């Protein structure tokens, strides 16, 4: 189990700490900065777990801080530790917006409170922000007032330890709505010759629930493995047979989804937390063609100039549009005096990234644009300094469209006690993932 939680700045100096056990001496943290430094000097490989003197240092990085935990034991569940540290950052972000050095210093009181509640003796306890916010609030003055009434003293919500630990009772909305956002992120690796080496779709369904009471929801998708419902499968087979059903891999569900029900009956049912949450995510590794195709011819005339000819094409339906397309093309670090010729979007040389950034606000389906650029290279160079080979990176968003073809067939909302009318809304969007890259020759 974790012995303590430390928040450290980017040098490894402590900002805030909470110790849960005595087995790791308080002085052990002092070694952390030098451990980091040593690991960096030895090689650039700094794994997220370091050992020194029998003390295990496990840490993640977030913005400008390290979140660190220590333990004496090799039998600590390291997957749980990392999972928890990320969750911790996530929860803090909901309290203090951005989790960074300054915000931690400013909000130490609430962070101590949260650390007390989320971890007990190094064992993770409650991490549902919705529930934590019920009894750990920033507005402490409220507490003083309610304390006087003595009846309304804050206490842990009774739901906390029940099987639906993520939703308090007694939520009411005037208008009952549920919004579904289906977002698909495309990761793709393309060789310089245009061959797709790897492609994957990372999809997720986010829900914003604004529903009263304890509603029970049932989600129908056009997945082969997921039965839309018993009746529709039999009666409307003729009509639905035409629509292609897809098969999702690696479905992962929020803890509110009844997993065993899904396993046995392939039905997604759940009582949602209030507000925003990620209901499910999935992955598809079916081969897909590049949605934004990009071909760059880069000619380096060493010691004089570099010429780039780039073409990009939106390989999507004519009706669709790709928004905020950004194509980042690497150029040598010592390039200068850029000259551009282009017809669409905006072209900029970004010296701090050593790259050219081509931005196209709207990119209609089927269209093809191009640009030509020329940059000067210094006539004197260090003889053959090895250069990092960096790929071209592409970013885009395509609304009203999913690459996989996933569709929400229905979202049934049923609140047994209140029986209200409710409105589900669905939105689709496809965007680039964090790794949509084209290798340069």
């Amino acid at each position, binding site marked *: 189990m974790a012995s303590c939680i430390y928040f450290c700045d980017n040098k490894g100096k402590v900002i805030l700490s909470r110790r849960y056990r005595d087995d790791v001496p308080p002085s052990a943290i002092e070694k952390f900065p030098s451990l980091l430094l040593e690991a960096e000097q030895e090689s650039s490989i700094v794994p997220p777990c370091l050992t020194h003197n029998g003390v295990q240092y496990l840490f993640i990085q977030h913005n400008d801080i390290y979140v660190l935990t220590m333990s004496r034991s090799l*039998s600590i569940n390291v997957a749980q530790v990392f999972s928890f540290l990320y969750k911790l950052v996530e929860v803090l972000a909901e309290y203090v917006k951005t989790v960074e050095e300054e915000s931690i210093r400013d909000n130490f009181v609430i962070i101590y409170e949260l650390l007390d509640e989320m971890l007990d003796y190094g*064992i993770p306890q409650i991490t549902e922000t919705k529930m934590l916010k019920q009894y750990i609030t920033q507005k402490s003055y409220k507490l003083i007032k309610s304390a006087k009434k003595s009846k309304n003293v804050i206490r842990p919500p009774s739901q906390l330890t029940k099987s639906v630990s993520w939703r308090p009772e007694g939520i009411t909305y005037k208008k009952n709505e549920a919004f579904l956002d289906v977002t698909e992120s495309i990761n793709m690796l393309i060789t310089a010759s245009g061959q797709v080496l*790897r492609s994957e779709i990372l999809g997720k369904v986010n829900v914003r629930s604004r529903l009263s009471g304890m509603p029970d929801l049932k989600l129908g998708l056009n997945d082969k493995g997921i039965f839309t419902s018993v009746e529709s499968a039999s009666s409307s087979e003729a009509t639905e047979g035409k629509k292609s059903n897809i098969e999702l891999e*690696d479905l992962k569900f929020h803890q509110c989804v009844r997993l065993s029900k899904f396993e046995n009956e392939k039905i997604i049912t759940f009582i949602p937390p209030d507000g925003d949450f990620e209901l499910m995510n999935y*992955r598809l*590794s079916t081969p897909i063609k590049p949605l934004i195709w990009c071909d760059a011819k880069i000619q380096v005339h060493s010691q004089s100039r570099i010429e780039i000819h780039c073409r990009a094409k939106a390989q999507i339906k004519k009706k669709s549009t790709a928004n905020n397309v950004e194509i980042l093309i690497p150029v040598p670090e010592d390039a200068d005096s850029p000259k551009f010729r282009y017809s669409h979007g905006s072209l900029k040389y970004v010296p701090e990234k050593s790259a050219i950034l081509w931005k196209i606000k709207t990119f209609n389906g089927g269209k093809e644009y191009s640009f030509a650029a020329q940059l000067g290279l210094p006539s004197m160079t260090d003889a053959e300094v090895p250069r990092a080979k960096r*790929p071209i990176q592409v970013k885009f968003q395509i609304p009203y469209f999913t690459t996989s073809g996933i569709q929400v067939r229905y979202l049934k909302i049923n609140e047994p006690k209140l029986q209200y009318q409710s409105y589900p809304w669905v939105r689709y969007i496809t965007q680039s993932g964090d790794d949509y890259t084209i290798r340069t020759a």
Partner: protein
Amino acid sequence: MEKMLKKFIQNATRVAPKISKKGELFELRNGLVSQYPQTRKDAIKKTIQQMTLGKDVSSLFPDILKNIATSDVEQKKLVYLYVMNYAETHPELCILAVNTFVSDAQDTNPLIRCMAIRTMSMIRVDKILEYVEIPLRKTLQDDNPYVRKTAVICVAKLFALNKELCQELGVLEDLISALEDSNPMVVANAIAALSDIYEADESVVPLPKLIQSHVSQFLLALNECTEWARIIILGALAEYTAKDSLEAQEIIDRVTPHLQHVNAAVVLASIKVVIKNLPQVQANTESPIFSKLSSALVSLMSTPPEMQYVALRNIRIVLEKYPHILSRELRIFYVKFNDPLYVKLEKIDTLVRLVDPSNLKQCTLLLAELKEYAMEFEPEFVSRAILALSQLGVKYSEPKFITKVLEIIIELCNTRDSFQDDCLVAMCNLLRHAGPDQEGMVTQVCSLAEAWSSVENLLQTDYAKCNYIWLLGQFPQKFNNVERKLQASIDSFTQEESLTQMSLLISVVKLHSILPGSMLQNLLELATTSTDEVDVRDMAIMYWRCLSVESSHDGLINELCNSSLPEIATTLDTFSPELLETLLRELSLLSSVYFKPVSTMTKPKSSSGNHLKGKQLDELQFMAQDEILKNMNEDNLLDFDNDWPAASNSNYKSEAQGSTVDYLNDIFGLSSPAPPVENSMADLSLNKKDEKQKSSNTQDLLDLF
């Protein structure tokens, strides 16, 4: 109207004085005893802030304590936090807080009850512990599950603080009965507390038996609890061995739904349980459970890098047991541009391991990918990619394919400046696998090495030099002027490390008939007199003896020289079967990331009796170890710290170092006398395979006996 105005003014003009930001002790002290509650609270906050910054504010203890009786929950929390931090420095004052603790533990608000019992059981002061009995007992039986789940953990805390007291009070029995609690969160915390106690002292609670008798409860609770509780319960289930295949199947069926949980730690914990039960159900490789496992493992690759790292290290273990489980998922493990380096390296390792050697298309694909990696920038990454290229060649094991690999490596060697070491090692591995009759390959490699002008400066690592000399010794006819090349190495003999020295000995002895006798004589003298390495010296002496009896046993030396090398079948290191089984049992634990079973670690002996003194000693020990390690050679320090990724070259050294530290432990007499040797043994067994290839020459020598 007037009333409202009055109220507004009253609110606007705050009477209570504010505490300035400086946080001077005297100011805080005045603030803490102020007549205005608001000022007092401000002062408490400022005090905690100073504490957070690392300043010693323990002198304010009595003043803080005056504020403990309050109805403001937040203030109470802060005071408790302070008390917890500084109780040890003011044990005599703590007694003043006891009354509040005891009465808070009976508060109507469950939050307060929890806080009281949680804080009380954390304070290392005997006097407080004397009062803990009644509140702890009461809270263990509390109506509110939120309180109970806190109380069960308090038992583990109490046990860590004072084992005897904990046993005397008999709360352990309460803890055990909490396993049958109706609330899954209480059950999970009870398991966690029991495991903690069991780890500290196996004789106190019969944990394996308890798990045995509660399996059905655990399976039931699994569906109804928080993600963290699931991880704990799954962890307990993984300890359980099913009675028969039927039960094993049932456990698998109950656990598989959780492979689809969004929390990666839950997924990994579920994988562990399934793998534990798999051997008993005798599933064939076509069984759907394997595809479920495979997709669960793959899904771990879309998590943050730290988690991916854990997953990749665990996949490495799983792959050794079930090599085909991921063979269709090669592309998932392709390196991403943004991956941190430590993830990239693990991915390369995984790629080579999971590629199916009977699938030419897949192997060719991977070859192209690895080639791409080898053109990258980061040195560690490129080195690893070059090694992977040779591993892949050896794994696919077909002359044409190996030729292709070899060509890539030779091209790399020619175009890039700084990777000769890695390339040479990779090429030698390929040659050793292909066997000496692959004339074409041998010529290619040798002509490349022939062209190098000053090998002494070109090659950096011991391992690469050793391979170079092996090459000279193995194929002398391919080189012009072998004599001069060997002489250059002999000249720097004393500066070389042991692998090169041994390799040099072997090669020179092997070629003694074509080299001038003085050279051999010179080398043998050097090796027997000017090296500290016992192995090298022994080897030289043995050769010397063999050579001096040559006249009578002519065959012996010939046999020595002309022995053919055993072919290397794989350059991927593997675990010993026992180690593999242990690691499979410890999946998702830190030990599985280090590939070091928990049992190899010396347990920090929990010092019963005098806590405070024990703690100081602990601290002192830590500092002393620190100091000693600091004074040692820095290179060695790193080897010692994480000798798992480092090559085993320095095994001898880390061993020596290990014993120094253990020696220190003996002085303090605190840590159990256990396994320094075992520890290094584990290292050895892990690296054995590796070592075998590295010192292949040594191996040959051994083969002769």
